[in-house]
Each structure stands twice: as C-alpha cells, then as structure tokens.
C-alpha cells in the first residue's frame, strides 16, 4: 500500500569509499546526526575555528547538522535559503545556529570528504591528480555533436598539456570568444590585458606541492608577509610592480610554510562535474585566464594593506567577456575606485544621438547586438558580471522612482544563472564571508575600509574580515583580503559547508514516465526516447548514487521492478487510479550503476511491450501522483512524456479548443482549466521534485493546464506538435537532439535562488519557472543550464548619495555529484539623475525580453489584445517621453535615442511572434508553448527566437573572418528580415536560435548547389534535407565552419532545414520576415508610421 515514507534505505553501497552512508528516511537522519552532534558546543567554536577539516574523521557527522525531524512538514519550510542561516535562528527549525559562527569547524560530510581527498591526492600531484579528474568528466566524453561550453572546456582544463586554454579541444565551445574582429581565441582568454600570457606560467609553483591537513592557522602565515601586512603602507597610488620574481618569492615563502589548508581554491570550471570531490588546486587547471587572479603579482610588501578593492590587485578578467578584443590597460589606480563617472564619454554621446527611425532604413547592425557597457570606471567594469549571465534593462539606474516613471521603460534584471561556463572559479572555504545583516556574499564591489573591515555594497553595513579571509590562498600572501578570488570575480562558486544543507545532499534521481496508450504507440516516440536514453545512460549527470526508475501509463499505471537478481524487469500494474499506491517499497528506483543491465534490458524491450495496446485512455494525473509518491523521499527529476489530453482519473481535461477558433476571439484559453497540475507542482516543489514535460501531440492537449506542472516545479516544457516517427522525421530528429541535451546537461538539485539588490531598490515580480517562496527567494527543485529568469524591480527609496548600485543572485544547489554549491553573480551599475542618461544606458534587448515576459503575464491575466496594446504602448510611451523631455529641438520624424533605435523593430517582432500574434489560426498549444519559452529562455535565445538573424551564405568570403583554432569562420553581415533582402540567386541562412533555415533561391548559383549542397542542380535538392554534406571544396568548408560556429555558441543543437520554394517549411521561414507586411500585421514601416502618429499627438 502507499507508504508515507520509504523505509530508510541507506545508500551506503553506492557511496564512494569513506563517505558516510546517506539515509533516506527522515528518522534516521535525525538519529544519526543528533547522536554525533553532541560534541560541539558554541563555546567551543573559538577553539575549533582553525581546526582543519582533516582532523575530523570523515565519518564523523556534524554537530551542526541537527536535522530536525519535522519531515512531515514541508521541507521547504525548514529549508533555508542562502540568506537565512544566520539572521533568524529562532524561527528556523534548523537549529544549528549557535554553532554557525564556527565556520571552520568541519561540519559537513562534504567538506570533510573533499579536504581529505585533497590531501590524499596532493602528494602525487600532476600525474596523480589528472587522471581521476579526466575520468570524472563524464560530459567530456560527449561526442563532438554536443558543443556545450562547460563540458568541452572540461576536457581541456583537465588535461595538463592543454596549456593556457582549452583551445586545443575543438569541440569545446568558446562562447565568449565570439566577437567578430576579435583576436584569436587564445588571446581572448587573456583579456586581462596587462597580464602577459607568460605570467601565467609561474603559476605552478604557487601551489603547494602538498597540503597537509593539519596546518597552523593563517595567523602563523609566512613571517615575511605578515608583518608587512600590518604596516600601514602609503596609500596605494604606486604603480604596480609587475614582477614575476616578486610573485614567485612570495609564493615560495608561503609554500615553505605551506600549510594553510583552510581554503583550498580550485579553478576547476563547471561545477559539479567531478566524480570525486577534488578541490586540490591542480596547476593544470589554472592555466586559463581564470587564473589571472593569482597570476597577478602580489604587491610589494609596503603597499599591501591599504589598497582598496578595485585597486591594482584586481586583475581578474571579467570572466569571459564577449569582446576578446578589449585589451585593458592596467594603470595604477588610486583610491577612488567608485568614481564611476568619467570613462567612455564618447560612448555616452553616441548613445544619446537621436536617430530618425523613419529615415534610417538600415537600422539593423551587421553584427549581433552587444549588451551596452555600463558607464563605470574601467577598473570596476572589468570585474562586472558577464552580461550573458546577468543583465539589467537600464544600465544606468535612475535615481528615483519618479525618474523611472518618466522614462517609461521597465526596470528589471534578466538572469541566466546556471549557464554552462567555460571557466568558473570555485572556492572551497570553511567560512563563506557574507554581510552580517543582509547576508550578501562578499563580492568585487564591496569596499574595504581598512585591512580588517569591509563595507557591504548592498546594505552598507560594516563587517569584519574574518581572520581566515586575510590569507589569500591564491597568491599565498597574508593580509590581502581584497585579492582573494571572492573579491576578484563577479561570478564565483562556493562549496557550501553543512550550514547550507537541510539534509544530506540528495542523490541524483531520475524518473521517466511514459505514456503508452494506443495513441502514444502510434507516434512511435517510445523507440526514439528509449534509444536515446540507452545511448546516453552513461552520460547522465550523477555519481555512484544515481538512481533511475520508470513508470508507464495508459488507463492504468505500470511500475517496473528492477530488483537485483531478476533476470528481467518485472512489471507491476496498478489499476486503481482513484487511489494510487506504490506497489512495492523498493526496487522501483534503483541504482543506475549496479543495475545497468536490467535497465538496458528494460529500455530495449519497452518499445515492443505495448505495440498491441488498444487502450486509448490516458491517466496522466494518477501517473504523476504515483511518480510523486515514488520521488518524494529523495527529490529529483521526473520526465513525463505525454501524447494526448489526459482523459481519466484526477487531472482529466476536456478539449477546449474549437477548431475554427480564430485567435482574435475574446475567449482564448490561456489559463489552466484545473488547478490539479498546479497543486501537483507545488507538492513536488515542496519535496524537491521537478517535473519536465515532453508533449508530443497531434491534437490539442491543453498545454495551458499541463504546463503548470512544470512551471511551478521549475521544470521545462518541450513540445513536438504532430510528432510521428514516419510522417514527421524532422520532429524525430529534433526530439533526439533535444533529448540528448536534456539528458546530458548539467543539473542542480534542491536549489534555491535569492536575488538581492542594494537598499532602495526592490524586486516585485519574478518571471520564469519556479515557485516564489518569499519576496526574494525562488524555490527551484531542479535547476538546469538552459533556464533563464527575469525580475521586475522598482526604486523604493530614492538612491541619493549613491553612485552605484549592485545586484547579487545566489543560487544554492546540490550538484549531481552530491556537493552543495553556491553560485554567486554580482553586478554593479551606476546611478544617474537625468533622463537622458537613463536613455543612454537603455539595453534594448533586455527591455524587449522583460516586456515579452510581462506581456505573457498580461495575456494570461487579461487578454491577448491587452498584452499587444501594452507592448505597442511601451514603445509609444518611451519614445514620446524621450521626445518631450530629452530632445531640445523638435524635429520632424520619429526620433529615438540611439540606444533604443531597435526598440520598435523588436517590439514588432514580438507582436509577430507566435505567442502574441493575432489573425493567423495559430494553434493554442503552439502559442502557449511559445509563451512558456518566452518565460523560460535565457535572453540570448529569446532574442534569436524573436528576431532571427539572416545571413547570405552563397558568397561567403574570408574577409573579416574570425580565426579560431586554425579554423576560418566567415562573418557575413546580418541582413534585415525582409523579403526585399532575399534574391533568387542567393542562398540565405536564418538563425532562429533553436532552429536554422537555409533558403535556397531558385536561381542560386550552380556553384553553391554543387559545391556546398553536393547535388547537381536545384531540382535535385531533396525535400527534407537537414544536413550539409562535408565536401572538400572551399565553399563547403566555409559554410560548414560558419554553421558549426553558430551552433557551438549555444548548448543545444539547432537543426538546419534546407528549404526550397516549394518546401512546406517555407511558411515558417517567411513568417520570420518581420519587417514585411503580413495578412494581419503591419510592416515595419507602417508600424513606425503608426508610432510616429501616436508620439506626435
């Protein structure tokens, strides 16, 4: 019968050696931890504060880990966000508060394990350390077809010989190096400019050959540096002594002393991909620009202590900035690091230059639009967060709400917090330094008042610098807190100690729920899915604890017992769908590694099992309930494959779409028809379970209702309309590719994300897939690297006396290797007082993205036409505000600030997008799926989806081409999306993010057809061509290089459709021609005229 909780099964068999058995059941945890935890008392904290993790045997559990037994209450409640650990101990059930100050005491299983791992491996360093790392990069074995950045780079960084950058590894994608005209990639990694590449060489000696676990505390640091740290040096206006010798000297002196173990810092990227936690700072990993932080020479002793942050020490390259072309010079830089005023005046002027949109026909830049650079001092800007991760709609924050209202532009942030990064600094430290009052993580934009105190940049509280933080493990110098990696990088990942855990980190658990009704079998999806799953079983992110399970359903629910010792999987059928229960407590979710044969067996036989099924009903609701019951003890990911409208049991839906319905009709069903799925999602969210929905449906399936299950549980939705294995091979390939990415991409479990901003600003609405737990905390049972989020903000109190404001997002998650990690992004932006400055800093893409999110909300809460009007009004209001308040002399025409010159175009693109278009009889599910995408996609892909890039590819030349790894990548200019730009004798590539179209004109040059497409003439181009043959010709090489370069820049695999005039896909191609007039929508020019009319009213 349905079990409330699984008997506490231990995972001990699955754990690596030396790891404490994790237990499932709440009761066991309680016992286990409380019994071990007695020993620690708050008073002991001082004593223990420098104790090294190694001292405690790995099996010992922590005192802190006083896991409260209130499992019955929703864990969410106990579950503290990053910000809550310290300031509200009495309320939180998590009662470890007295001990929490004692950071260094090793309290978690994890840190203990890691440090011991570091110790064990440190002796045999380069040869000994790299093989395990290599083997652990499961992702890196992915075939070249998967160009995901982090994974590719993983291989590179794990190989000692791959010096300086991972560039020797072609499949690795170098997403940030993509700036046209930039220097070759290798240089772009070194964009800290002033650090010459050779400087990174002496890195190796910086790392101690061994790290004994029981070192003296940092207090006993190198005698050479410490006294100097205490001497008050002159204000730091001296030029830097950029001498490698000095650096080495310090390094060796520190190394001889050796022993400070509190912080091990590893530059291993990616996060969560190591099979064994292995934070020992491997020199092989340090060769990229990531290492600039350490590679930078230390200051001469006299100058160490007064240099403010942002002073010369701060060299960390602004982590993989897109423009590799920038060569920053590092002047010696005085005290006033926050004087964010002067720089880039010329840019200012450019940004303000009014553009007459009516006259400028060619408004679209020939290259991809870049995020505007905030007008900060160069030194600060260099440290700022990568705009791909964190972006604000207004890079100049208006000082007051009144000013913001006047500008008529939305203020908000767009985040892509879990993006695959090619380089990510990871800090393992027993204390994570945070502001005591607002819990902000220390970041590059804090100010150090003196050696021992820092001032929070969000709440302006002055905090003490902990003793441990005084020591910089990178330069191995004592007394330079401002040079620690935490203060050098706007994007950083911490290994979280056990204060950040509510329960032992959960194992990765994957449950697949397949629809096997007659309809589902007809589509033949099961074959594809099972085969893809089989192929990628080894690539599922996880460790030895990974668990997997399967459920299938039609009008009944089938479970599969994968008990060890069974010769074949055993199917258990539960036909009572009114009151679903789990037929057996064990063996439905089994360890992936131990039962691999059985699982493979099941996957091979599953597609054949139901071929004769005549059951047409679908009991999705009960199946979800069953899946939830199965998963709730651990949390994890449920992947649901559904092919029709659920028809029986809880959550049954009725068709709501009338076939003749035009989308102009008033009553279009964008809201869910039942709250079953929402409630289900909330329950899942409470148990750290995320539901991902794959909808492969021919008919209407009410995605509006079904989608809720993913939306509130932080899952994702995939939709394959009219999927059929024979009739629609294009969709099959799409499913294969997307599923592969889905299965192998990184995943974070039991995550929460908190977004903080400087006092005075407040966040009021969130967009994306999650459940908002409190005013600034998002609950994300799963987090994946393809999810984007948006927030709207307002200026609550005016920001007088502030020159800059900061935003910080902190994502606390459990990696697939069972480590608790915190990924922190911090962004700093200037505050301005005049309207014209606000317009100068407007980021048109971010504004469009945020408006799209708001429009989705509006169409759900009000109507679609309301949302469309709101979009148009956003343009009209902002442009008329600009006209009336900023422009001094009234010119005829439609004037827009340079920064907003693309605003009308992008809004028009949004209006023509599937989510918001009217007139065409777009299917309801299509529309809702696009809305889901708008909400859940990161900005870059959303922009491509909204306004695709069009290139002419039949005459690619090497002129202005990029050169990456000996590959020449042509850079054709982006064309306007108008049929007028198409010529019959050309071939054009349209890059719409998740899909690419190559349109071949009727009179396209014979040369191109034969040399690139490999067919004799236009007529013989096959109808369903989705691949370019690899030919030996120069044209083919160029075209393929260009397309694969485009593909490498995104983690998923856009399919290329080659279309001719008579292709069925031509309609989708032409639909993206945004500047043209369609049956029901204005052309760009007409739209401008309409706006002009409204603005000049």
């Amino acid at each position, binding site marked *: 019968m349905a079990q409330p909780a699984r008997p506490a099964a231990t995972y001990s068999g699955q754990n690596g050696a030396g790891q404490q058995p994790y237990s499932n059941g709440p009761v066991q945890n309680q016992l286990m931890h409380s019994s071990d935890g007695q020993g620690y008392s708050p008073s002991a904290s001082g004593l223990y504060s420098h104790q090294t993790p190694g001292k405690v045997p790995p099996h010992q559990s922590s005192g802190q880990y006083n896991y409260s037994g209130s499992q019955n209450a*929703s864990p*969410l409640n106990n579950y503290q966000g990053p910000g809550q650990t310290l300031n509200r101990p009495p*309320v939180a059930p998590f009662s470890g508060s007295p001990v929490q100050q004692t950071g260094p005491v090793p309290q978690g299983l994890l840190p203990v394990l890691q440090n011991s791992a570091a110790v064990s491996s440190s002796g045999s360093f380069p040869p000994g350390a790299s093989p395990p790392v290599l083997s652990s990069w499961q992702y890196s074995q992915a075939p070249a077809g998967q160009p995901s950045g982090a994974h590719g780079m993983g291989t590179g960084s794990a190989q000692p010989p791959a010096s300086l950058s991972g560039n020797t590894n072609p499949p690795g994608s170098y997403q940030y190096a993509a700036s046209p005209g930039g220097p070759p990639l290798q240089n772009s990694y070194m964009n800290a400019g002033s650090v010459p590449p050779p400087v990174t060489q002496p890195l190796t000696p910086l790392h101690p050959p061994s790290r004994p676990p029981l070192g003296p505390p940092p207090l006993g640091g190198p005698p050479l540096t410490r006294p100097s740290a205490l001497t008050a040096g002159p204000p730091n206006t001296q030029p830097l002594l950029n001498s490698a010798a000095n650096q080495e000297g310090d390094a060796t002196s520190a190394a001889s002393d050796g022993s400070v173990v509190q912080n091990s810092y590893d530059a291993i990227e990616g996060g969560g991909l190591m099979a064994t936690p292995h934070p020992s700072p491997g020199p092989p990993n340090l060769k990229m620009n990531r290492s600039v932080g350490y590679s930078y020479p230390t200051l001469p002793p006299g100058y160490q202590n007064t240099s403010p942050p942002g002073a010369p020490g701060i060299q960390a390259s602004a982590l993989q900035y897109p423009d590799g072309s920038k060569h920053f010079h590092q002047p010696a830089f005085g005290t006033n690091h926050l004087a964010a005023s002067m720089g880039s005046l010329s840019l200012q002027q450019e940004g303000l230059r009014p553009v007459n949109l009516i006259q400028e026909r060619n408004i679209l830049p020939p290259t991809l639009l870049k995020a505007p650079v905030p007008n900060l001092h160069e030194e600060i800007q260099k440290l700022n967060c990568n705009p791909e991760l964190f972006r604000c709609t207004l890079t100049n924050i208006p000082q007051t709400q009144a000013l913001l209202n006047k500008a008529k532009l939305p203020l908000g942030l767009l985040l892509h917090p879990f993006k695959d990064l090619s380089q990510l600094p990871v800090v393992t430290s027993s204390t994570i330094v945070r502001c005591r009052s607002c819990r902000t993580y220390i970041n590059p934009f804090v100010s150090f008042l003196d050696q021992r105190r820092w001032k929070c940049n969000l709440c302006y509280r002055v905090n003490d610098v902990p003793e441990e933080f005084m020591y910089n493990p990178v330069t191995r110098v004592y007394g330079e807190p401002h040079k620690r990696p935490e203060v050098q990088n706007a994007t950083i990942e911490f290994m979280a100690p056990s204060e950040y855990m509510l329960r032992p980190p959960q194992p990765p658990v994957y449950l697949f729920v397949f629809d096997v009704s007659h309809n589902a079998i007809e589509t033949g999806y099961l074959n594809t899915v099972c085969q893809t799953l089989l192929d990628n079983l080894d690539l599922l992110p996880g460790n030895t604890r990974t668990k997997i399970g399967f459920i299938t359903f039609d009008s009944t629910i089938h479970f599969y017992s994968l008990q060890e010792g069974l010769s074949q999987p055993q199917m258990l059928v539960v036909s009572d769908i009114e009151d679903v229960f789990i037929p057996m407590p064990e063996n439905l979710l089994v360890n992936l590694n131990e039962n691999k044969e059985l699982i493979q067996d099941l996957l091979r036989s599953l597609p054949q099992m139901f071929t004769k099924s005549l059951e047409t009903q679908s009991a999705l609701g009960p199946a979800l309930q069953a899946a939830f019951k199965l998963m709730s003890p651990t949390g994890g990911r449920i992947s649901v494959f559904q092919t029709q409208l659920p028809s029986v049991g809880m959550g049954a839906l009725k068709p709501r779409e009338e076939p003749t319905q035009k989308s102009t009709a008033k009553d279009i069903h964008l809201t*869910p028809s039942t709250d079953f799925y929402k409630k289900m999602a909330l329950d899942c969210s*409470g148990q750290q379970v995320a539901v991902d929905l794959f909808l492969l449906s021919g008919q209407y399936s009410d995605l509006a209702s079904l989608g809720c299950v993913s939306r509130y549980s932080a899952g994702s939705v995939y939709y394959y309309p009219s999927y059929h294995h024979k009739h629609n091979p294009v969709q099959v390939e799409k499913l294969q590719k997307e599923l592969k990415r889905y299965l192998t991409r990184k995943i974070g479990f039991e995550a929460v994300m908190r977004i903080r901003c400087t006092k005075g600003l407040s*966040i*009021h*609405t969130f967009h994306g897939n999650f*459940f908002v737990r409190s005013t600034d*905390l998002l609950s994300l049972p799963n987090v994946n690297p393809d999810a984007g989020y948006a927030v709207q903000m307002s200026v609550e109190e005016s920001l007088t006396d502030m020159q800059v404001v900061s935003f910080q997002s902190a994502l606390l998650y459990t990696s697939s290797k069972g480590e608790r990690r915190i990924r922190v992004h911090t962004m700093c932006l200037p505050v301005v007082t005049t309207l014209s400055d606000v317009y100068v800093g407007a980021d048109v893409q971010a504004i469009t993205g945020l408006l799209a999110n708001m429009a989705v909300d509006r169409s759900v809460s009000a109507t679609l036409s309301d949302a469309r009007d709101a979009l148009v009004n956003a343009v009209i209001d902002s442009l008329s505000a600009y006209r009336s308040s900023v422009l001094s002399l009234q010119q005829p025409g439609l004037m827009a600030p340079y920064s907003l010159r693309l605003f009308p175009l992008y809004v028009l693109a949004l209006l023509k997008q599937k989510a918001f278009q009217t007139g065409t009889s777009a299917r309801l599910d299509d529309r809702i799926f696009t809305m889901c995408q708008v909400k859940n996609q990161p900005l870059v892909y959303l922009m491509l989806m909204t306004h695709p890039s069009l290139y002419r590819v039949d005459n690619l030349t090497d002129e202005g081409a990029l050169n990456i790894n000996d590959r020449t990548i042509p850079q054709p200019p982006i064309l306007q999306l108008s049929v007028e730009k198409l010529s019959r004798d050309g071939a054009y590539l349209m890059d719409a993010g998740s899909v690419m179209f190559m349109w071949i004109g009727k009179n396209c040059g014979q040369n191109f057809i034969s040399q690139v497409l490999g067919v004799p003439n236009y007529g013989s181009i096959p109808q369903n061509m989705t691949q370019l043959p690899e030919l030996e010709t120069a044209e083919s090489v160029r075209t393929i290089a260009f397309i694969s370069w485009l593909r490498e820049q995104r983690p998923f695999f856009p399919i290329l459709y080659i279309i001719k005039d008579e292709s069925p896909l031509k309609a989708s191609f032409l639909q993206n021609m945004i500047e043209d007039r369609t049956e029901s929508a204005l052309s760009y020019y007409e739209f401008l005229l309409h706006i002009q009319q409204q603005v000049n009213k």
Partner: protein
Amino acid sequence: MVFTFAAFCYMLSLVLCAALIFFAIWHIIAFDELQSDFKNPIDQRNPAHALVLPEYSIHSLFCIMFLCAQEWLTLGLNVPLLFYHFWRYFSCPADGSTLAYDPPAVMNADTLIYCRKEAWCKLAFYLLSFFYYLYCMIYTLVSS
C-alpha cells in the same frame, strides 16, 4: 425594552463580527509572516484559505439578516463589501478553488501588498461596524 428581531440581529452580528475581526487579524499576521520570509506560501494557503469562505459567508449572513430586519442603513453600509466579496469570489482564476491567495501568485510583491491592504481595510471596517452594531443593539433595545 422589547426584544425585537432587529435587536437579535445586532446581537448575533456583534458576536460574529468579533469572529470577523479575528479573521482579519489572522490574515494580517499571515501576510506579514509571508513577507518577512517566516513562512512558506504553500503552507500558508491552508489556514488563510480555510478562513476565506467562512468570512464571506458570515458577512453575507449579516446582510441577509439586516435585510430581513429591514435595517436599511446597516444593510447599506454592508452592501459595498458584500459586492466586493462577490466580485472577489467570482473573478478568481478559472482554476482557482483556492480563491484569492494563490500560493504561486501571492508572493508577487504587488499581490502581497494588495492582500495586506485588503486585510487592514477589512479590519478597520469590522472594528467600526462592531461598535456600530453595539450602538445599534443598545439603541434598538432601548428605543423599542
């Protein structure tokens, strides 16, 4: 001193009004806890939602009673709130048996602020009406 139906109505509503005041305070506390992170909106829905329907029905009961007692002034004072409750009840989302305080939406700062304001306004209204009923009760008892 005659015990009329109107007097009975006022006595009953006096008692019930005390209950409504309690409900309003309960809501205020609940939203406050939400805003200050002490509570999870998923848990929140249970107590808060449990009280929404009783509140609405008690208030409707008032109106019916005053209608029957022909206390037009009192009824007039209560009718706006009655209509507001009706609007609230019928305009909630199609999927919402959960009424207004939908856990995913309630944390939206705008919604939360609105809910708090609503709760405070109701508290004020109920308090005032409590004394008004008290006065009316005595008045009817004495005058008749």
